[in-house]
């Protein structure tokens, strides 16, 4: 699989008066062409910040301190003069170049379909705005036709293009947002909690539409969600984040069926299901650490049932698993023996 996006040692901190919040701390992963990656974790673990960093939408007091975000097609947006010496790193692009990436190459579906749209503009016009910015030379009639086409693709009747957001139901609004993200044929779509605010039946319909569209356009997707069952429905790869770190990464089945990291194991056990036998649910004791001064060593050690001495002092590096990696000292011990 061709690697489309590669993130290496990304660090995004937010500088506050009481110290820097290490929202994303040394995160690395890859996204292949046509791959759907699920990014899961509790609130405040850095999932959204990771993706906003990819879009370079981190604003003051936030700062991308270190790392590189390599995007395969980054050269397409650069001016023709000095292409040879420059890398594919998104973080090195000028603001003007980055604007050409956003929406055109990497698009984002924002959280909260209910509030993500401008209430005083028709949805067709809002979708067309994306086209106007990235392809101003296209005649208006053709743009409108493309808006109508994309609305039909996501499953909204073309007659609704002249409706205002409040005239659409929650599911339709979410579909319109997906249309907005897809209209420029991006390579990568980042979806931030795309179905969280929807009812289960609508949620299932939108998820199904998303899955079909992803196959149709062979999109690469990053799906951010706290709901592991949503990830189980649509994703191929799964990354689990905890307190700014990526603790486990691997194929969906592997992470779900044979989770390596103690946090992943507990998270999956805490998830109630309506299928299968009624199991005794367990909760993870304790609370998420304060990211201004995270605990020494592994971030999870104060809550970890399998904590060892080394966890308290040294930060675990990534150890390879069957088809991914896990950041936990348990797996080093196994290798030595």
């Amino acid at each position: 699989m061709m690697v489309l996006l590669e993130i290496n040692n990304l660090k995004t901190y937010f500088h506050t008066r009481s110290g820097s919040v290490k929202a994303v701390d040394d995160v690395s992963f890859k996204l292949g062409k046509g791959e759907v990656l699920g990014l899961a974790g509790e609130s405040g673990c850095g999932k959204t910040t990771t993706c906003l960093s990819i879009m370079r939408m981190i604003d003051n007091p936030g700062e991308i301190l270190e790392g590189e975000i390599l995007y395969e097609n980054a050269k397409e947006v650069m001016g023709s003069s000095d292409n040879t010496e420059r890398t594919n790193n998104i973080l090195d692009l000028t603001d003007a170049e980055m604007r050409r990436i956003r929406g055109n190459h990497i698009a984002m579906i924002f959280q909260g379909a209910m509030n993500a749209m401008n209430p005083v503009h028709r949805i067709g016009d809002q979708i067309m705005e994306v086209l106007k910015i990235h392809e101003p030379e296209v005649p208006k009639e053709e743009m409108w036709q493309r808006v109508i086409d994309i609305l039909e693709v996501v499953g909204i009747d073309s007659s609704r293009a002249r409706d205002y957001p409040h005239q659409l139901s929650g599911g339709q609004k979410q579909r319109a947002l997906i249309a907005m993200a897809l209209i420029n044929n991006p390579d990568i779509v980042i979806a931030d909690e795309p179905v969280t605010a929807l009812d289960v039946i609508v949620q299932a319909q939108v998820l199904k539409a998303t899955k079909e569209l992803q196959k149709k356009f062979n999109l690469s997707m990053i799906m951010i969600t706290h709901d592991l069952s949503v990830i189980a429905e649509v994703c191929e790869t799964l990354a689990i984040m905890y307190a700014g770190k990526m603790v486990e990464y691997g194929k969906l089945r592997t992470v779900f069926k044979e989770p390596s990291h103690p946090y992943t194991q507990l998270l999956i056990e805490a998830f109630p299901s309506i299928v299968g036998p009624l199991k005794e649910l367990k909760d993870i004791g304790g609370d998420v650490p304060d990211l201004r001064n995270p605990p020494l060593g592994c971030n999870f050690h104060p809550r970890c049932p399998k904590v060892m001495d080394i966890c308290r002092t040294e930060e675990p590096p990534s150890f390879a698993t069957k088809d991914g990696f896990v950041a936990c000292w348990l797996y080093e011990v196994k290798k030595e023996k």
Partner: protein
Amino acid sequence: MKMTKSNEPVIDAIHVSKLFPVMKGIIEGLFKRSEQKYVHAVDDISITIQAGETFGLVGESGCGKSTTGMLLLQLLNRTSGTILYKGMDVASSFTWPGYISLILNVHFFMPIGYGLSYIFRSKESRDSLKSVINKSKEEARIYKENLDDKEVLDRIKNLRREIQIIFQNPYDSLSPRFNVMDIVAEPLRLLKVYPSEAEVEQRVLKELDSVGLVPPEDFINRFPHELSGGQRQRVGVARAFTVDPEFIVADEPVSMLDVSVRVGILRTMNKLSKERGTAFLFITHDLALARVMCNQIAVMYLGRIVEQGPTEEILHNPLHPYTKALIAAVPKPDPDAHRTEDLPIVGEVPSGIDIAPGCRFNPRCIYAIEECSQIDPQLETVKKDYYVACIRYKEINKIK
């Protein structure tokens, strides 16, 4: 109703409805003559909850589950039906502000409207307005009588102690200016449960301890912003349990919380309700949570209960077409359970104002036949404690 004292249900709601009138604008009200429309938020539902039982109410947003909770709490006055609390009818709450607004309406706003109707309206509409005013005057008189009746007021005040609520959002339902001690002690102080402040404090400490905020001494001086989401909701649980209620409505108590802390809160609530024999109404949109918490659930659709019965049976073998769709739509946390087939439902939830004639689910139902748009199905007994409202449930599920 003949029942022995011991197995008398804590809450018994019989054919309860709540209609919200749809407001018209002033201009529309003056010039257009149209029938008054209503949102059928809760339409003819009956619920019985025994002491120590946890009853689950599930459904999509807008199906009336929260309104039902509000009605049982007497926070909303019902339009029709009876709600018996421990066998006693508690009609509605009577307050002075409520009386004043009623009086203002009858003696001020309504006469103005009546006067204006001389200019804009015909004689018939004026007469109908007159009868509405007379009816409202009669209502105001009854309201005043109840308000003067000390016994009624005492009963209602007592009710406020015995019925409690746990709110959905622990970030908004705790006052940011109160510390934990004041938040949990407030109902005790307001209802004057204990004569001395020392006893109140002791009770608060005990309650914090039992919801898992240990050691409680560390928490009493903290403010809500110093607590995590899970801890806040534990404070909310402690506040509800502190006055020894007989009945608690928990309206989506964990939907704002992370998965890793949800289970702990649910278990705490379960433990406390079992220990103290509190009846629980658990309102949730999440069937998986209802499965963890409740023995009995009722599935609501557009203000009606469509299926009611033991949780495990409904989840494994739903009888009503809507329940079937709802269960099929729930994503499963299992990569092998990939869903391929289409959901057995069409369209989207219609508005609660103009409800389709017949079965209100028939426009979306894949099994709907001609009769479904004519007959409004009532809950039928399938077996003991299992009810379904569908005229074709036997056919669909091949039950003899």
